[in-house]
């Protein structure tokens, strides 16, 4: 592919993204403010200006993504991350400078620009998907059979049903729409099943690859859940119900309790789909089809041991945060004590267990420090949602802390979890690179395989972590508090 082709593909994708972004801005009535760039107050001029910018930004995307081997799903994530990046660079920095206004580098300015963040996420998603379609399918990627789609559908159904059954009223997946809760039970059930089916099949269509371990799928699922929240919860459902886009900070804050629902929905669907598909592969795939795979049990004990050791290291880093914010007492209450020493013991035991799970989930998925930090921090974020905001309060006899205010109050814990994840990921990577550096082929037969996996990982995984990390910090800081 020549550089020119890459640019033109990017331009076309950017135009498509710009059309979506423009439509959203038109709905929000923001197009005239865009036209302010050329000192005109006109909707049409605003649209032309934004779509031209969109084409240029899309061209850059095409260039940057030129040599990354990313398929549909990963390209979608790259697009989302790219859109979020342009919110910071474009909406909060370049745009005010061009207009001669102060840059929007404050929480207040960022809050008032929040609708454009959602718009840019839509822009990025559309651009990414269109670019992926223009590039065509990678011949090396596996063909997606009907069995995989069935697995996805079953997983989605099971997860939606389970979440609906165990979550409280304000947190259910359908609570995204107040209208839905007023429907008869039959309609609600159908909507629920439809949602589950769509989520599961959609995930499988986006990510036809079957990763060798579940960890990457889990993190992908978190990103996918965020996408669903933005796409379905904040956009499609309100559009259908009231033809409105409730994208202002206060409106999004009200919808915040369903964000953890969707994140867990995405993560659990991804994990369950992967497990079902792996189980299917285990049972039915002919040896020739999985010649390159080790058995599930091979090297398991070592991965668990390394993960546990890395978990303790991460836990020690987290302990610093815990001591500083005085959180050890809460942890000690998990076992009915209030003594900080008990808190440290419980905390380290949990760190060890979660680290051992990391070892199982993410073995042979890191190839350098960057990927170690990326996977680790994303894994830490997942445990903030699942552990600190959900399991811990329920264990202590309360409700999931899923409001924007509660999430903001737990922000120190988020920092702790991110630090834990980073320490865990880096330590695990160092251990793995010392004893089992899978990316260095020592036998000719492994070389091609290792190189391919390395390239795939390096060019697809960063999109997911960056999306998760950006979302974790931006959304929590901007929606919580104030």
């Amino acid at each position: 592919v020549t550089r020119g082709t890459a640019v033109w593909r990017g331009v076309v994708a950017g135009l498509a993204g710009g059309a979506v972004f423009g439509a959203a801005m038109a709905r929000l009535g923001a197009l005239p403010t865009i036209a302010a760039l050329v000192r005109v107050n006109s909707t049409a001029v605003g649209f032309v200006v934004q779509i031209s910018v969109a084409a240029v930004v899309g061209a850059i995307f095409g260039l940057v993504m030129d040599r990354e081997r990313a398929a549909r799903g990963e390209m979608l994530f790259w697009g989302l991350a790219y859109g979020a990046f342009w919110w910071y660079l474009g909406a909060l920095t370049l745009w005010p400078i061009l207009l001669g206004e102060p840059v929007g580098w404050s929480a207040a300015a960022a809050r008032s620009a929040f609708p454009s963040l959602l718009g840019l996420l839509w822009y990025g998603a559309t651009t990414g998907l269109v670019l992926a379609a223009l590039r065509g399918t990678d011949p090396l990627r596996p063909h997606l059979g009907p069995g995989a789609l069935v697995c996805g559908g079953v997983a989605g159904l099971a997860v939606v049903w389970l979440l609906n059954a165990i979550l409280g009223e304000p947190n259910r997946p359908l609570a995204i729409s107040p209208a839905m809760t007023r429907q008869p039970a039959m309609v609600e059930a159908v909507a629920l099943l439809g949602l589950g089916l769509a989520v599961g099949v959609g995930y499988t269509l986006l990510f036809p690859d079957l990763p060798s371990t579940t960890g990457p799928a889990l993190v992908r699922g978190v990103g996918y859940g965020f996408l669903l929240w933005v796409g379905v919860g904040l956009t499609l459902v309100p559009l259908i119900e009231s033809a409105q886009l409730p994208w202002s900070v206060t409106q999004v804050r009200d919808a915040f309790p369903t964000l953890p629902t969707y994140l867990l929905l995405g993560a659990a669907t991804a994990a369950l789909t992967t497990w079902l598909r792996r189980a299917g592969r285990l049972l039915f795939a002919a040896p020739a089809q999985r010649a390159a795979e080790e058995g599930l049990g091979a090297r398991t004990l070592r991965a668990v041991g390394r993960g546990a050791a890395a978990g303790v290291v991460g836990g020690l880093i987290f302990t610093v945060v815990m001591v500083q914010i005085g959180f050890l007492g809460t942890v000690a209450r998990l076992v009915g004590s209030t003594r900080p020493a008990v808190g440290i013991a419980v905390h380290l035991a949990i760190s060890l267990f979660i680290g051992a799970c990391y070892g199982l989930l993410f073995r042979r998925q890191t190839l350098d420090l960057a990927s170690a930090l990326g996977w680790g921090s994303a894994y830490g974020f997942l445990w903030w949602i699942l552990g600190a905001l959900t399991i811990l309060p329920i264990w202590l006899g309360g409700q999931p802390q899923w409001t924007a205010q509660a999430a903001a109050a737990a922000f120190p814990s988020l920092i702790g979890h991110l630090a834990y994840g980073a320490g865990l990921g880096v330590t695990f990577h160092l251990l793995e690179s010392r004893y089992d550096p899978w990316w260095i082929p020592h036998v000719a037969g492994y070389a091609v395989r290792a190189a391919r996996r390395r390239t795939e990982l390096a060019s697809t995984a960063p999109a997911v972590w960056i999306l998760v990390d950006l979302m974790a910090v931006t959304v929590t800081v901007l929606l919580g508090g104030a």
Partner: protein
Amino acid sequence: MADTGLPDGASAPAEETSLRRRPFAPSPEASVVSWWVCALAGALAGFAAELVFGGIQLWQGLMEVGLVGAGPTVPGLGVSLVLAVVGGAGIGVVVGYRPGGYAAAAAAGLVLGLLWWVVESLTVLPLLSGVPVTWSASAAQTTFGFAIGSLLYGGFTGLGAHLLVARYSTTRPVSDGRDRRAAPVRRVVVLGGGFAGVSTAQRLERRLSRRADVAVVLVSDSNFLLFTPMLAGVAAGVLEPRHISAPVRAACPHTEFHRAVVGGIDPGRRLVHLRPVDAGGPSALDYDHLVLALGAVPNFRGLPGVMEHAWSLKSLDDATRLRNHILGLMELADVEANPVRRRGQLTFVVAGGGLAGCELVAELCDLVQDVRRFYPGVDPGDLRFVLVHPQDRILPELGSRLAEYARQRLGDKGIELLLATTVAEASRERVVLGDGRVLPTQTLVWTAGIRPNPMLSSAGLDLASNGAVVCEPTLQVRGHQDVWAVGDCAAIPDSQDQGRTYPPTAQHALREGRAAADNIVASLRGRPVRPFRFRTIAILVGLGHQQAVAQVRGRMFAGRLAWLLWRSVYLAKLPGLEKKVRVSLDWILDLFFPRDVVLTQPSAAATSRPRELAWNEGDE
């Protein structure tokens, strides 16, 4: 350390093919840019990014934004620039370089920028200015401007570093995608696939995993590592043969494996001559370092008839054939009309009351007692188990109290112990003892002594009186810097006990292998080598059904506790999770089902001979 060594097989005998050093396939995307180039590029990019984004902060007056209450000290642009250069170098190193990976570089930079914000704005600056560190959402909101600045700084530093390296690499071909590691220049050859050899290869593999210039080659006539401590279990039909053996190719995935018999060693020309096991011509391997881990073979001491008629227990084949032989005898005895001959068929003699002999005689006794009910023609009174031992107490490796306990337990099982007695002669139907007594038996199992692999005698190395290779305490063979010997074939001076050598046990072999590997790595790197030191941790002897004796660092255990210890230690030492699970299952199923009496050899004639080949043919 000499350089690349010899042209392959330059002066080997004409009919030998020399085994080439296998080149690595090139990995097209491998990063070949060294870390300092990335650091330099990152520092430059970080400087530029900070000029832009720090400049924006300065211009817009954002530097003065403080936390609520006491304002933290905010570094000026000068300090920021210094920090940005250092941070940029860090980002450059962490992000690294992969051709074409613009997006990944920018993304990784962005994540690092975010981390930088957490460290700098939420942690270090409040600490420096005496404001309590809370990591709270309000602190995050107050410093959100810095978050955006750090994000953009990180992202552009990552991208900039990548562009700089890409630019740099077009002017100097350091990352043209070709792999410079064409072929390993050094070769370490390990001979022998037992505990010593495999542990050497595994350790070498692990220590050299990040170096592509050294190849590790392992040569063995069997392609699996046999867990010899459990062989008696196989002979007794409790364990499946394959469950106590782990394939070398799986245990050492990065090692090049050759299934061959070692025909000879030529230390002068640094060559090893190989003979294939099944078919094909001889071949030669050149080496930079050679590890001899060829093990030992039974030592029949030249006693008449013993080599031809005694069974041994050194290989998987020995164990399965012995089991078949015993079950075959049970079949014969069941229908045998002649009572004298039947008693001979039902008499089982084990020579040697050491660890292996005691374990084996107890296991054989359990096997026969357990399957006896399938053979109604076998009179329990005809069963006879005899342990012949030349000294006046069994288990000389253990303390006398444990040995006495073991003697009693074996006696309880009905095993006759003939102490201070030797085997003088053996034939197909009887064993003659040193004192002239005759035992009518068709089963003599020989565990009374081993000797190092006879192949070593032709290698021109210094040999000890028992035929083992004389080693320095560093495991180097005396007079050779690049030849190492470990395991049963090596005479390694005991560091604690002057004048003695380390005993030929599995726990020593494992440690010797690792120590040799460490020393080889040290000498490859030009570092000093270290003498080998090890003190026996434990001696565990199973005595059949739920009985064992154990001596752990001088502490003594006996009975069920020792048996549990014996099982758990051996299970833990068994290589690989899969085999552990399989052996555990074997043991559990054994509780619920009777022992199998399936004969896996077609005819009794096939099992009636202890072995197909004579040992002096050079078999390991």
